């Protein structure tokens, strides 16, 4: 069965996640295929895709008399949570932003609300809904 591009992207991401979670010791690819319910054909394609992108390494190993591949993470995902929704990154006034300019950090209408929204979401847990 042919998978859609979206499914492939999701599966690639899940394979990468599992490899990263196992750490530098690596993991046998067959273990991952079992966990994700993939055929070895589909799984190998995903692993090759990740290898080509330089995200994981594939090393041929002999395991219980059979040749298989061990997958190890080469790059770890960077945590970008603190700036993920920062308005400055996509701001159309970015080049004009200055303290003494028409628009800047003092009167920016986006930077304050952004900080407030994240502050509320991450520091003040939402009260459980009672019925």
């Amino acid at each position, binding site marked *: 069965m042919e998978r859609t591009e979206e499914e492939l992207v999701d599966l690639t991401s899940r394979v*990468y996640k599992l490899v990263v979670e196992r750490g530098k010791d690596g993991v046998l690819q067959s273990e991952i295929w079992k966990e994700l319910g993939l055929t070895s054909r589909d799984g190998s394609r995903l692993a090759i895709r990740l290898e080509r992108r330089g995200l994981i390494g594939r090393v041929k190993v002999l395991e219980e008399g059979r040749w298989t591949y061990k997958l190890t993470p080469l790059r770890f995902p*960077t945590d970008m949570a603190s700036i993920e929704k920062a308005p400055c990154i996509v701001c159309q006034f970015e080049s004009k932003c200055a303290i003494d300019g028409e628009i800047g950090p003092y009167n920016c209408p986006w930077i*304050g609300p952004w900080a407030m929204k994240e502050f509320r979401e991450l520091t003040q847990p939402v009260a459980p809904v009672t019925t």
Partner: protein
Amino acid sequence: MKIEYEDTFVKVAGLIGGPDYVRVARALLNNENATDEEIASATGLKIKTVRKSLYDLFGRSLITGVRVRDPKRGWFVYRWKAQRDQTDGFIQTQRKKVLGRLKQRLEYEETHEFYHCGTAGDPNRTFEDAMESFFKCPTCSKPLNRLDNTELKDALRWKIKQLEEDVSK
């Protein structure tokens, strides 16, 4: 669909331009040195959208372009390549830039008193500005009332601390 475990280059592209940029970035990783037409065909995006994202990413030094002659048609085309070693630097630069602005805003909030008319969209006025207009909003003429910015200051301090920790990692 939110893809949490993704190449940093793709995540950065998504941060800048959303889903279209993500598709272009993924196509660039799957096919190194691709032309705009090849990317458009791989992603199903319009050539105009692909070019816009490529020029934007190029302007931010996240990709490089090499001009080569198309052997079939004879004209020049650009072959684009992701600069993956630039992504961590890009993120760190953005963190520092945002951090600087948050610090400036916090200092401003701490050293001024603010007044507001209650009309959405109207700007906050400093005490000096409010006094000049006799505590009446110059835009909507409603009276200007003192604004409590305690939560904003707390939020700015919290965000500054979070970014400072990330910058020093």
